[in-house]
């Protein structure tokens, strides 16, 4: 029998983790993002990506979309702890891969190369709603919207074509059809 030298219990078995997208409606006031982020870091939860902006100018409501990973118990705690925060109005939570939810991330790529290369780039990006935002003889800035994994792959493919800078947002989410989150 090994003897524990700690006044604390030993860790139990860890459950399987799953990826969730959590949408939080908050009062857009000073420090609110720090409260959310602090809750995650303080309790050892994980933030994979985070997107936030005010969605109601009149009521000053911001919508925060957080992608996180954890065991079902941790995900439940995240939901419940978020709901306790005073500036939080509501929280919606769903598993990555649920059918009636749409996700998008936006990315900007800067690629150096002549027009031949630029055409290739456009071709590769074709499926992901490409918009050329800026163009010179030697460079192009292109915007795409896609899923996280798709953007990951795109960035990899563009590397050989002269990708020198990438900027991307966290995921945002919305329900399909007439339904809204509640």
């Amino acid at each position, binding site marked *: 029998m090994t003897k524990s*030298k700690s006044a604390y*219990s030993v860790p139990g078995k860890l459950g399987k983790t799953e990826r969730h997208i959590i949408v939080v409606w908050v009062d857009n006031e000073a420090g609110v993002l720090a409260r959310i982020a602090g809750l995650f870091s303080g309790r050892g939860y994980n933030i994979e990506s985070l997107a936030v902006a005010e969605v109601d100018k009149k009521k000053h409501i911001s919508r925060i979309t957080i992608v996180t990973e954890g065991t079902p118990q941790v995900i439940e*705690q995240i939901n419940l702890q978020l709901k306790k925060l005073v500036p*939080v109005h509501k929280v919606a939570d769903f598993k990555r891969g649920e059918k009636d939810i749409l996700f998008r991330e936006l990315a900007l790529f800067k690629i150096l190369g002549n027009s031949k290369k630029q055409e290739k780039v456009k071709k590769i990006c074709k499926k992901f709603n490409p918009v050329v935002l800026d163009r010179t003889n030697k460079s192009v800035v292109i915007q795409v919207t896609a899923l996280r994994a798709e953007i990951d792959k795109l960035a990899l493919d563009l590397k050989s074509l002269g990708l020198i800078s990438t900027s991307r947002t966290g995921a945002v989410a919305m329900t399909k059809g007439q339904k809204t989150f509640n």
Partner: protein
Amino acid sequence: MPKLLSGAEIVFKALEDQNVEYIFGYPGGAVLPIYDELKHHKSIKHILARHEQGAGHSAEGYARSSGKPGVLLVTSGPGATNAVTALTDAYMDSIPLVCISGQVPTHLIGTDAFQECDTTGITRPCTKHNWLVKDVNDLSRILHLAFEVATTGRPGPVLVDIPKDIQFKKGKYKFLKHTLKKKFNGKVIHKISNSELDKFIDLIKKSSKPIFYTGGGVINSGPDASKYLRELVSLTGFPITSTLQGLGAYPGDDPQFLGMLGMHGTYEANNAMHDCDLMINIGARFDDRITGKVDEFSPGSKKIHVDIDPSSIGKNIKVDLAIVSDVTTLLKSLIKRFKEKNKNFVNSNKQKTSKWWEQIGKWREKKSLNFINSDKIIKPQHAVQRLYELTKNQDTFITTEVGQHQMWAAQHYKFNKPNRWMTSGGLGTMGYGLPAAIGVQIANPGKLVVDIAGEASVLMTMQEMSTAVQYRLPIKIFILNNEYMGMVRQWQELLHEKNYSESYTAALPDFVKLAESYGCVGIRAKTPNELDEKIKEMINVDRPVIFDCVVDKAENCFPMIPSGKPHNQMILGPEEEEEISDEGKVLV
């Protein structure tokens, strides 16, 4: 047009409208305008602490013994950082505190000004919510909201940071009640349904090995909760155990009470928790001092969990029936529904639980709180028992510091009423008991208030004796003096091969002389013979007392659940301790 008030005036107007009678605090540059305003408000009395942490614990003691929120007033920078321990303590033990802190003027925020710190940043994780007031016209709304957040749902501390220029500025005062409206602890109020109650009652009826496991939530819910709890326990005839924070909600000397559970709980309570088939958790949170190893916690039982905080449910232990509710509300409707259909349940159910009670009787025979007494040296458990016997006939309030003495107090002092037991459980703050006793005495003038202390803990906030003397608060500091940080020493003995690394305090002060220098009374007891007389002397002095009770240095706190062990593997006493410290013995 309503009269415009200065920020400082608004602070006091709001405190008056919240019926605040006492504030605990310490002045400084950034709160001077508020202190200047104090003289105009005779209904509010300021208690000057000697350190902001002391002020905070006093406010906690006041809140816990009175059921009202404690109010704390500190300056910016070090004033605020010194209050952090008390705020965290209140956060862990769910004590309603409203802390008002001064801040450097708005235009200097962010410039590293003198005594500036990011107070709302620092206190964000240790308050339910905090505010930095940037507009004087928001001040009254924020202050009232602060009281509401602190006292609703699961209570806790809040902080309002007020820059000095806002304290001078004139603004409008408004008193709107219930600004949170639907939000209940950030959640919509949960209505208890009859089907939930029926499920609850069904589980009660099916059980043959039940146990009530109750906690601080019962105390926080108010005196009615204790009343209903007693009624429900007597209606069912079930055994009941309590957490450290819940002591007093159910009479400690009642035959249905199994004593405290957990790491230093009784053998019968912990074994009953392990072997039960129904666990009814009311207002407790399955924390790690209770559950031990989570995977092996009470493996065969159905579990009911009643908690006002939805995030407490399912955090550590999965349960079969979860009810988000205030304890009083739940118990009241449960008892009503239970009585409708189950008159005479106790008698009809007696047979079903008789084997269970028999088993509990066997566990009780172990007499796990027993210790080997001595007629030469005062055993700390004996000292607590004598204190209990000599004070039980009057309404006594007990606070503690943190460590062995705290556990002995919890084991051997029997509480019969709620709000009589103030101890730092969640955070485990050494130095809590003395300032807490000050707050308790202020809320309960004329009552006997005793801080059962350890000599190491009490030195951490000893300066507050000066506060007690200033306000003529006859608190009794009953120090179980073993010259060691006893709990640290115990763990080192049992688990670190008796390597007593830095747990002995050389050069302790002479506590009797220390008492005299503070202007209070010093008493020392060295032998069991003189103990009773000295305790009586302490009780009868109407002045603050420091009681130096010289106890056995080597005594350990038993029973205990060693770390990583389930509830049914307790160490009962020194004989068994030998077994586990074999390796240790070789080294000595």
